[in-house]
């Protein structure tokens, strides 16, 4: 790598790539060549920088200038103005109120963040082993292998208080210790769980794509501690780039002798390979994951025996999440005390969260445990989009729960979230505004779990389906008294009786929304009204004749021709034929089309008539 006067770091995380980062990179190559300065600028593709909503983003060193929402058309300006004349392009910088933010570290999104697992993500080129080494990579592995016994290294992890980042929060050192203590068995395995499936979580993907060597180093340290000489990365097939990057990292490490026989001249030998899934959420569960690596259906098996005793091919196995392994090298290099100084009493260190939903700064953040939801959503996340109000936040994906505005000052850690009916999960945070219907959201999560249930145990297979049917009934206006109690009863049974974590936690979204938004369930059932105007059967559209200007646009856009009228008489929706597609609402230039909670009286009347007719037929 030659020294050049400018380093251009383009975020090539999946978010920015989907927004066109690769086209921008190509354009830079062209424009730099046109201006004969190719040898003055280093173009570096990095992993995810975090603020996906600003994407595509880039940082230009030595100054650290941060550009956001860059398009291929902007490239010429950046090269001609910034690179050639030294005048950074102000219009591409982030505007915060009246201030223009020039430098990356001044962006408010980064202020409360402390990056441990994400340290290099968005800073180095993930294709380059040299860049990883330049930031201190593989030093921790060297220290562990040359200066520590496995037990000493396990003790450091124990003192750091690190807990599994995949969702359960099980102390990492206990798993390692169990396998370490098994001296009878010579063959042991370490598995990195990269089957990230929680909707709304993408930290594992970003880590695997953005800093693959860190995860590999973490895995090797774990392997040394427990006495394993073979490791597996199990990565979802939906993440092709992550698979490529890890495979490449393994090859590079082997080439340099950082992996293979007698690493660093010690007795430690290690080999790793990548295994992929084929689209099954349940494979994130460790027993199911092991079945999948063995080439079978990803069905979970009862625990015990735990994988630490009898895992892959019956051998002692540790399954660690990607983010957990990502923390290991830094804990070793900076010390257990440093790591444990962050966080709360029982949840130490930092946690990566994926912010999504109706929030301004969607993206990937890493903050100390114990930060409040308010800080996370309003300071780091920048608050709600537009003038919308905060209504609820869903934490922990389909295993987690919804919390409300009353919980905004809750410190985020394993215990506090659990006590309130949510869950840390893998760290997906979905923020919702007042336009979202909580019954509908719960139905959506339930639908996901029904779809992903492997079908092996009946509480999950049948119980969740029953719950979904009740939710579908409620959201279509056919809810009955007693439905809420039935949901609670079913939810409790499924939680208690299911075989694996998927089933045990699947009722959480329903239970937590009943706990905090019971009135919404009641209004759906008793008043047949969806007050958030989301459930189509429990709302209707209406044209306000005072505001209607008679332009006929709605009538022309209506797919069922159920809007009629004239310039003089204004327009009316014929409710019986309306399919509630919302086209009229979207196209009205004067916002005369309104959404109204509840069924239209005409529909209520018609339903009564139909019921009567059906009864007559029966008689």
């Amino acid at each position: 790598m030659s020294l050049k006067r400018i380093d251009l770091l383009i975020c090539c995380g999946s978010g920015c790539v989907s927004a066109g980062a690769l086209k921008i990179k190509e354009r830079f190559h062209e424009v730099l060549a046109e201006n004969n300065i190719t040898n003055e600028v280093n173009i570096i593709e990095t992993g995810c920088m975090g603020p996906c909503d600003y994407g595509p983003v880039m940082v230009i060193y030595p100054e650290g200038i941060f550009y956001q929402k860059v398009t291929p058309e902007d490239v010429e300006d950046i090269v001609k103005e910034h690179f050639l004349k030294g005048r950074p392009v102000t219009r591409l910088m982030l505007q915060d109120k009246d201030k223009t933010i020039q430098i990356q570290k001044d962006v408010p999104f980064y202020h409360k963040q402390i990056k441990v697992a994400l340290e290099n993500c968005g800073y180095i080129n993930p294709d380059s082993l040299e860049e990883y080494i330049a930031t201190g990579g593989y030093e921790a592995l060297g220290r562990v292998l040359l200066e520590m016994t496995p037990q000493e290294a396990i003790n450091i992890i124990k003192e750091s208080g690190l807990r599994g980042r995949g969702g359960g929060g099980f102390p990492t050192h206990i798993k390692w210790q169990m396998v370490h203590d098994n001296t009878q068995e010579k063959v042991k395995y370490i598995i990195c769980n990269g089957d990230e499936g929680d909707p709304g979580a993408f930290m594992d993907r970003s880590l695997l794509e953005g800093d693959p060597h860190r995860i590999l180093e973490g895995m090797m340290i774990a392997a040394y501690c427990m006495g394993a000489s073979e490791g597996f990365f199990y990565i979802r097939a939906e993440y092709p780039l992550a698979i490529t990057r890890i495979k490449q990292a393994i090859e590079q490490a082997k080439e340099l002798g950082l992996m293979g026989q007698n690493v660093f001249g010690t007795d430690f030998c290690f080999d790793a390979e990548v295994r992929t899934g084929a689209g099954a959420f349940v494979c994130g569960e460790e027993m199911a994951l092991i079945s999948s690596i063995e080439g079978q259906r990803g069905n979970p098996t009862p625990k015990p025996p735990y994988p630490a005793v009898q895992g892959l091919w019956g051998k002692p196995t540790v399954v660690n999440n990607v983010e957990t392994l990502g923390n290991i090298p830094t804990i070793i290099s900076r010390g257990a005390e440093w790591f444990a100084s962050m966080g709360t009493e029982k949840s130490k260190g930092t946690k990566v969260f994926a912010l999504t939903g109706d929030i301004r700064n969607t993206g990937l953040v890493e903050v100390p445990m114990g930060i409040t939801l308010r800080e996370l959503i309003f300071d780091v996340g920048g608050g709600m989009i537009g003038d919308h109000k905060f209504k609820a936040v869903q934490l922990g994906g389909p295993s987690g729960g919804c919390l409300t505005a009353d919980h905004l000052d809750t410190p985020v850690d394993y215990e506090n979230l659990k006590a309130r009916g949510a869950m840390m999960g893998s760290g997906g945070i979905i923020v919702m505004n007042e336009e979202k219907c909580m019954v509908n959201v719960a139905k959506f999560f339930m639908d996901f779990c029904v779809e992903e249930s492997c079908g092996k145990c009946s509480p999950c297979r049948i119980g969740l389906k029953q719950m979904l049917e009740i939710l579908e009934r409620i959201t279509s206006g056919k809810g009955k008294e007693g439905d809420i109690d039935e949901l609670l009863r079913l939810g409790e049974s499924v939680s208690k009786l299911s075989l694996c974590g998927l089933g045990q936690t699947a009722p959480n979204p329903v239970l937590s929304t009943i706990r905090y938004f019971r009135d919404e369930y009641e209004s759906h059932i008793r008043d047949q009204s969806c007050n958030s105007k989301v459930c189509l059967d429990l709302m209707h559209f209406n044209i306000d004749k005072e505001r209607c200007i008679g332009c006929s646009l709605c009538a022309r856009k209506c797919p069922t021709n159920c809007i009629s009228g004239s310039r003089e008489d204004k327009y009316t929706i014929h409710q019986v034929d309306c399919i509630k597609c919302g086209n009229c609402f979207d196209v009205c230039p004067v916002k005369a089309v309104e959404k109204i909670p509840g069924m239209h009286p005409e529909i209520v009347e018609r339903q009564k008539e139909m019921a009567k007719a059906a009864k007559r037929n029966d008689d």
Partner: protein
Amino acid sequence: MYKEICSKYAPTKDNLIYILHEIQDAEPQHYISKEAVLAVSDYLKLPENHIYGVMTFYSMYSTTPRGKHIIRLCESPPCYIKGSENILRKLGIILGVEVGETTKDGMFTLELCACLGVCGNAPVMMINEDVYGDLSEEKVEEIIESIRGRQ
């Protein structure tokens, strides 16, 4: 073709998933045919029903022929909150197919999938191995047009 793919892997049971992936990718219609199952069964010495069991467990395998390009629209909650339903409706109109169907010209198959892990840019879809984010109805139209134009 099937034998060639199989022989790249050791004839052990744990390679089943990878062999199936490779066969499906090599097949222009992105599916696993009955002949392929027989060939794999012969190579790995596994009963056909075991292979069908595995194939139907995982959502990415198809036992029926599909289009040249596979559109997988994310139906997970973060995308739903950001309007994936409208995108699905639009895709249905542009392509003239329902979910799970292939266009008459054999170009596109429309599928739904679980979270693609690009939730910061929801709603999202994947066409073959490319991810498209921040979708709007207009953007979807452009993307499909540009793929059609490439042919």
